[in-house]
């Protein structure tokens, strides 16, 4: 089948198009006004704006997330370790004092 440019352009112009609702602008305005200005930005939006501001690529999100995850995991493990040490030390001291007191009572 052969074609020429004008025919083809005319054919392209037959592409379907459905107009928007008549009141689309006012419909959007109504919905926008329901957004509370005080709660406009979520934490994710703020982060996304920061990334956009610095023109960072998508992988930067993943890297930042991994870095944050590693940081939080590190803090978590450290505090858990400290907590374990404290508990064993605390139990050890308690037992020792009880033994001491118990022994003292026997003597009396």
């Amino acid at each position, binding site marked *: 089948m052969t074609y020429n440019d004008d025919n*083809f*352009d005319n054919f392209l112009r037959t592409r379907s*198009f459905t107009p928007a*609702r008549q009141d689309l602008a006012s419909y959007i305005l109504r919905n926008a006004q329901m957004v509370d200005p005080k709660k*406009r930005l979520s934490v994710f939006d703020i982060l996304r704006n920061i990334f956009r501001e610095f023109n960072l690529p998508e992988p930067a999100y993943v890297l930042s997330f991994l870095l944050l995850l590693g940081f939080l995991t590190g803090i978590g493990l450290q505090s858990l370790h400290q907590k374990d040490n404290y508990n064993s030390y605390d139990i050890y001291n308690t037992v020792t004092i009880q033994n001491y007191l118990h022994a003292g009572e026997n003597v009396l």
Partner: protein
Amino acid sequence: MAGQELENENDRGLLAGMRAGSDDAFSVLLERHTNRYYSLAFRYLADKNEAEDVVQDCFIKIWVNPTLWKEDRNSSFKTWFYTIVINACMDRNRKRRTFPLPVGFDRDDGQAPIDTRMNKRQEKTILEYEIARLPYRQRTALNLCFYEELSNKDAAEIMGLNIKALQSLLMRAKTTLKKKMTIRNVEAI
């Protein structure tokens, strides 16, 4: 600012008004631009409701945070917002179902069906399908220059290209479509 004054205000002034919390400025911005961005969104999504949703989402983003558009940018608000809408449409397209073809048209081999005579409706569906399968930049060039009738300069600015590169993309888009439609025996061409 009074209504008449706002209507004469340029986009930069309206956004400044929005930053000061003016609903009226946002309303004028919407009245001025909604249809053009809807039209573009429809070219990408081929669905009225989805196109309206995308335009609404984009406008609400700018309403929530008018500082997203920086005054010191080289591009105008209109040009910048085109890129926002295009990106939103591409995101939406990634998540949605594949484009439906009329029964009997194999998606993969691109060959004409046994009954090669298509009705107008089928031709339009095939055209929409083949446009949706164009590479992103070719499709954007076609939508902006051919369907939205933007100047080459504006379209090139939106796409971050020089004018020659844009023209090349547009030509390649048309050539690809011609080939595809010829293979499918579309009689209109």
